[in-house]
């Protein structure tokens, strides 16, 4: 009897939780792991099998899904051309290194000819050493840490590295707002944030910028920024460099607004997404600057068409991660076409072809014009944008 009562109460508890939140429940139907985006392939055409890895569920799911969605649009476009056909098998790794290796092994069994991903840095580092040892070519669209491509000569990257952003922010400020009194706020427990901050401060010192105060926070202490803001205010800071992720930036903006402290924010590419934080008053982000290689509101024709397709298919505005995914597939496609790819090539032959093509070709994608060094790094510059009337405008 007692047990039955317990069971009923347990069910009631679960149900009440469900009932509380049924209004804001988000069903993520794109999160199904391991679905393939293979299209009906034309008879007799060459088929390139690409294995993709990234987080489709879990805390970093929005990055993984954006990359996958962007890549799928590219695959559809390319397959519709009728020439070389691409088969993309995208596996979920939940942003976890071990699961990423498992996903990679599954893809090997599936017969992939080259690897696209992983999306996040730590899994990318883990998988890169496996791929390098096995002889697979690997292109990550988004893992920005230097240690990913340092793994070996077959590992390539399509996004710029963390320090480059710090340098670019300092250069932009030196050119356009040299009189600003600058404060820096960063997440000292995060390699991405600390990396940008270090590069920024070195470059700022070289350019003679007026950096008056640097404050930090940690992953365990990232809700209360009032003390840091008070310190900035008393130091007369009017431009705050904030190289961390958009969810924390939205908090800093709200708290500064409550204090009645008016200042300009300058973020890195992690700030991309600030306009879509649920319930966040996006007008607070007006006039803020950020570094990103891609802006959905750009007048460029390719961007416009991509954005329209993306919105139609997934019902949201594409982020830079989606654009990175799209560009990755096109870069691979261009290399395959130029290098004379045929279906019967083994993965190590594909790797050889890709490495020689990537180091010699130039790709013009949504995220700019790109060439690659032998180290696997891409030469492409971060572009500063300013948020005006709720969209990114080139600054």
């Amino acid at each position: 009897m007692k047990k039955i009562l317990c069971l009923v109460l347990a069910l009631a508890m679960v149900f009440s939780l469900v009932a509380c939140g049924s209004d804001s429940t988000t069903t993520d139907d794109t999160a199904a792991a391991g679905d393939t985006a293979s299209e009906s392939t034309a008879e007799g055409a060459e088929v390139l099998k690409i294995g993709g890895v990234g987080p489709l569920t879990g805390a970093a799911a929005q990055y993984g899904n954006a990359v996958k969605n962007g890549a799928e649009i590219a695959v559809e476009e390319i397959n519709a051309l009728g020439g070389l056909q691409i088969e993309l098998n995208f596996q979920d790794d939940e942003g976890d290194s071990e699961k990423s290796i498992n996903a990679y092994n599954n893809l090997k069994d599936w017969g992939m000819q080259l690897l696209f991903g992983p999306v996040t840095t730590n899994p990318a580092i883990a998988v890169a050493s496996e791929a390098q040892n096995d002889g697979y070519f690997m292109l990550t669209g988004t893992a920005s840490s230097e240690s990913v491509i340092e793994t070996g000569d077959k590992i390539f990257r399509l996004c710029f590295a963390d320090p480059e952003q710090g340098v670019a922010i300092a250069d932009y400020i030196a050119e356009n707002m040299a009189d600003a009194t600058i404060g820096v706020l960063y997440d000292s427990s995060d390699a991405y944030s600390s990396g940008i901050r270090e590069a920024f401060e070195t470059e700022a010192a070289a350019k003679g910028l007026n950096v008056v105060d640097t404050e930090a926070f940690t992953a365990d202490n990232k809700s209360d920024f009032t003390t840091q803001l008070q310190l900035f205010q008393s130091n007369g800071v009017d431009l705050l460099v904030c190289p961390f992720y958009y969810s924390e930036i939205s908090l800093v903006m709200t708290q500064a607004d409550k204090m009645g402290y008016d200042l300009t924010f300058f973020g890195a590419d992690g700030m991309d997404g600030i306009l879509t934080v649920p319930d966040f008053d996006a007008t607070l982000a007006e006039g803020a600057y950020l570094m990103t290689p891609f802006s959905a509101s750009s007048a460029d024709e390719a961007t416009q068409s991509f954005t329209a397709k993306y919105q139609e298919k997934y019902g949201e505005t594409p982020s830079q991660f989606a654009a990175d995914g799209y560009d990755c597939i096109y870069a691979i496609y261009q290399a395959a076409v130029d290098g004379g790819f045929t279906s019967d090539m083994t993965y190590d032959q594909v790797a050889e072809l890709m490495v020689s093509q990537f180091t010699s070709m130039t790709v013009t994608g949504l995220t700019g014009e790109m060439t690659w060094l032998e180290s696997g790094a891409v030469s492409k510059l971060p572009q500063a944008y300013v948020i005006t009337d709720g969209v990114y405008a080139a600054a």
Partner: protein
Amino acid sequence: MQFLGFLVNGISLGSVYAIIALGYTMVYGIAKMLNFAHGDVIMVGGYVISTCMTSMGMNPLLSVLVGMVACTILGITVERVAYKPLREAPSLAVLITAIGVSYLLQNAALLIFGSATKSFNSVVGVKPITLFDGALTITGEALVTIVVGVVVMIGLTLFVNRTKMGHAMLAVSEDKGAAQLMGIDVNATISLTFAIGSGLAAVAGALLCSSYPSLSPTTGAMPGIKAFVAAVFGGIGSIPGAMLGGILLGIIENLSKAYISTQLSDAIVFGVLIVVLLVKPTGLLGKKISEKV
């Protein structure tokens, strides 16, 4: 003047810690268990309030009331389902169960609300006040938090010392067996304690999320741990101890951030805790209980 600003923010943060710590300390005092799921009740409260306000367009005060009711029901349910069957079990089993409930709540929220951080619209409509010709601005949230903190403390002290149910709580916390012999319904008293603690957690959730407007499934975790520290700091089991511990913790955290290092504030807070416990193992206001042989 700047010091005053840091101090006010510290007291405001401390008031939130104190309200959460009351939940920990009352449950510990009566059920002799550490309810580690308490921090996650705060998070549930935050989500309920936020959903009421944004999706249903309810007014903030009403939303907080709904949040309190929801959390009270949640608290009683958790107690009945997860803790009551373990009343005679070793305390370790109860502790592990509490951690289990904590993860259950976090993951349920992850499933229902998703992992993305939401921004929380403040439930406080009070305008910031400016003192000393603009040298000091105190936000409406900080003021309301401090006022609510004081009201809760006075109210709870009166409740415990002046009402029959409060006396029953004191009796159960002193000696469960004797209280039962005197005709006190021990189970009902424990449920009442969970109800009050969880209701206060919803208030804490509203204040916490209004001052620091972000909401994610792990929102309650860190404040929960800090409040637990505050309860131990003040002497766990003691209601005035939880209040004192909470407010001191908030002030120490904010001042060390302001004057020593923004990175090391947590290390300093926990360092102070260690020193206090070395000098006074029962906490600032804790009673030394000698074991009867």
